[in-house]
């Protein structure tokens, strides 16, 4: 239930920001959507299993699913890469400079 709320809140905020004018807000929205999807990946492993999946640290029966975590880990870093690229685009002049009225 809480995992669903986390995903829902992040998606709502992300979608709102992505639909606004100006590339900076769009980038912020994109980051939120990235968070949402990473949380979704983790939730897909099952939120009932929450012990860390280090061998020898916790009982194997409680350990969280490591596979979605590995997916999410690389996804976080890729999101970072895309975020930086979007910031780069904003920096290169695609953002709303005051004298330039973008269509909406």
């Amino acid at each position: 239930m809480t995992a669903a709320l986390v995903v829902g809140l992040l998606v709502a905020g992300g979608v709102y920001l992505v639909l606004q004018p100006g590339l900076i807000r769009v980038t912020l929205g994109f980051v939120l959507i990235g968070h949402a999807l990473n949380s979704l990946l983790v939730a897909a492993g099952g939120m009932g299993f929450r012990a860390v999946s280090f061998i020898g640290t916790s009982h194997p029966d409680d350990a969280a699913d490591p596979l979605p975590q590995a997916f999410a880990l690389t996804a976080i870093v890729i999101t970072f890469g895309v975020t930086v690229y979007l910031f780069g685009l904003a920096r290169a002049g695609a953002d709303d400079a005051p004298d330039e009225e973008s269509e909406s």
Partner: protein
Amino acid sequence: MILAVVLLALVVTAVAAPAIASRLGRNAGYPLAVAFLLIGALLATRAPDVLDGGTVSLNWEWMPSIGVSFHLHLDGLSLLFASLVLGVGALILAYCPRYLGTSEQHQRLYMLLTLFAMSMLGLVLARDLVLLFVFWELTTLASFLLIGGAGRTAVQPAARALVVTAGGGLALLAAAVLLSISAGTTNMSVIMADPSVVIESPLAPAIAVLLIIAAITKSAQLPFHFWLPDAMVAITPVSAYLHAATLVKGGIYLLMRFSPTFAHMTMWTVVLMVIGLTTMIVGAAFALKQHDLKSLLAYSTVSQLGFIIALIGVGTPGALAAAALHTFAHAMFKATLFMLAGIIDREAGSRDIRELGGLRRVMPVTATLTGLAATSMAGIPPFIGFISKEEAYSALLETPGPAWTGWLAALATVAGAGLTFAYGFRIFYGAFAGPTTQRKLYEPSMTFLLPAAIPAALGLVLGLTVGVLDPLISRTVEDTMLTESHAKLSLWHGFGSPLVLSALTIITGMALFFGRYPVDRALHRHRVPLTGADAFNHTVSGSIQLGSWIGLPARSHAIGAHIAWPLAALLVLGATGIAMRPDVAEPPLSTTRPHDWAVVALLAIAILALCLTTTRITAIVLLGAVGFLVGFWFLLAGAPDLALTQLLVEILTVVVAVLVLRRLPPTFRRIRRPRAILTAAIAVAAGTVAAAATFLLAGRRDRSAAADYLIHNAKKDSGGSNVVNTVLVDFRGLDTLGEVTVLAIAGIGLMALLRGTAEPNILPADSATAPPDRLGNMVIPRFAARVLVPMTVAISAYLLFRGHYEPGGGFIAALVAGVAVAVLQLPHGLDHPPRLRAPYLIYGGLALAVLTGIGGLADGSFLRPLHGHLGIGGAEISMTSSLSFDLGVFLIVLGMAVSAFDRLGRGTTGELPAREPELARNGQGGS
């Protein structure tokens, strides 16, 4: 085999043509004509066989999985058309050298003409539907290229010809597909052998209509006729060869080929006769209106092809014999007339019959040849054109069905033929009779005239000895109708209805000719309200407008406009899925813990604030807050590696964002109220759907088998105890390699994106946001960096090495090192390039990761980790190649972070000298 040799020989000739043409110039036509004759002679060696009822066939496997083969077949019908392709082809190639200029290059023309001949020959030999379609389209393309070769004015006509005939080609493809569905094969021999299979299938009417569309576009019948007069912009040899003798006969061939299957279908007969006869009369009337010789001949071709198509529609053996004979006769006289029109054009400098006159005195031979061809066209004895018309009349009178239909068709033909007679005489009279306006003209050389003289003379000789064509025509009809046929062609049929009709034709024609002034006035009084070319252009511009209208929602620079549509689709999809109340299982364990709610509440507040804030710096702080909360959420979910990664990424994101914001205004643009409400509504809907989908679909099962395997076997298989890290570097290394490659592309992309961008100097130098004395401000951070950076680097190295066992690994270590770079970079002034060079890091990392992967090949597969033990001084250290792979990951991620600081901090490379003074000025402005 011989059929493949013939086609191959033409391909070889086409390949050699440019070389010959660059050596011999325009005279290259002569050797090429000889080549055509030789190839024709080769084919003719099999003609006696074919005429005796044998066939020559070749069947090579092509696409066995779908039963399509390279199947060629020579029968009487193919032989008739093949003789036109190669015979007229040789004449045209022999005509080209004197027609063409000496100053231009002719490689392209000669090559395309030869390639066209090859395609056309392939078309009439093909015995497989797919092969037929391929050759059909090749002829269309060759025609397009040959028309378009005439220069700028030819662009539009060439495009129109292509669109109309290629559209017909699509109809042919559709017909081929339906035929192969209903008959179960693409082999035309099998389809022909038992017409009942196709004719009884429910698809039969559709196939017939599609075949007719394909044929009437190719053969320029109403309402698609307009491309042919347009195509007269092409040079005269092309018009004579493609647009009179062969290409436009493709439709005729197709209809004759499929006659055995469809000839007994009433719809086939009615449609073909109506279209054919209408086109014959309308085309002839248009021809009579023309003053330009080539336009006149083009409309005449349209009209004559209509005549032949009407005969095919009749569908009796006699009608098919007449159609075959007229196809042959038409090729003779029309090719002659085109060649002569080209000669007149070259000699007299005009093709307009109003400007020509009395040429018989200066060009008597040309005049005689024109007279021969025009007389044959007009259907006057003893020319072959007379015989084919006689045959046609007697066939039309025997049209199946009520007797009046035959008479109606015959009388319509009389009208069309009368008009033909009239314009035939008009050509001759307009150009050669009357007072001589140009007295200084000379007869062209015999080499120029000879290629036109041969078919002109043949029209007369074959008229007198028409019996020699009996075997060919009989075979053609037998192959077309699959019935016995014994054509008995003769010049004199005795007195009967056909002769009466012929006489009537000549009387009508004479009347139209002698009354030409009132006829002209009547014809020119009525303007055509809409020409075919206009209709075509309207259709084209209409479809462009339609496309532009459809694309309207996407024509915006606003990102929202592009995202809204897929988002709306996703929302509808998600909402539908939830509304269908999926049957879901209960989760095996309770998924909610009490302290989760604290994260949810804080997250809600932070996200709401992030959406509402109007200043950029607040937004960045709130973004960091959201990121930390998500990191904390991961920690709660039992994913310390994720949490660590998330926190580090958040730090770096904030650093990068600050670097960018430095150069942007402090506040966002205001969001107008209606927009805010609308987008908020969409956002809430999206969030609801996402939450519901997550709630219903995620985590409602026991832990996956893959997870169980990894948790129980990771240590044994890989030696690592951090299962997530072993998944990254051992179990799913290829995934990781792909992902770090994406990062590498992002880093390199960023380097390229901001290379040499102008500093967007938005802030005024004296703005409140301009940095105060930078140097003085930076003493403490600089000092701190001296301590922090070595520590951070040490931590990073430690995290990298222990990653296999404890939280850490290449991703996390690189992010920590990235923080070190940021700490080092910030106080140094962002205008200095970092000491680390991003491209080296990225390329080095990629190379290391890939090399490690290749090393895995030693153990049988790419990226398989190698394990080993190293004994140093008694201590046993276990080593794995995963570490070097992780080091590659580390370098790439670090490289990307460095490129971000480098480019976003400075926005340019130091390599551009023009940038330096501006940077200096900025610095001064600040101090």
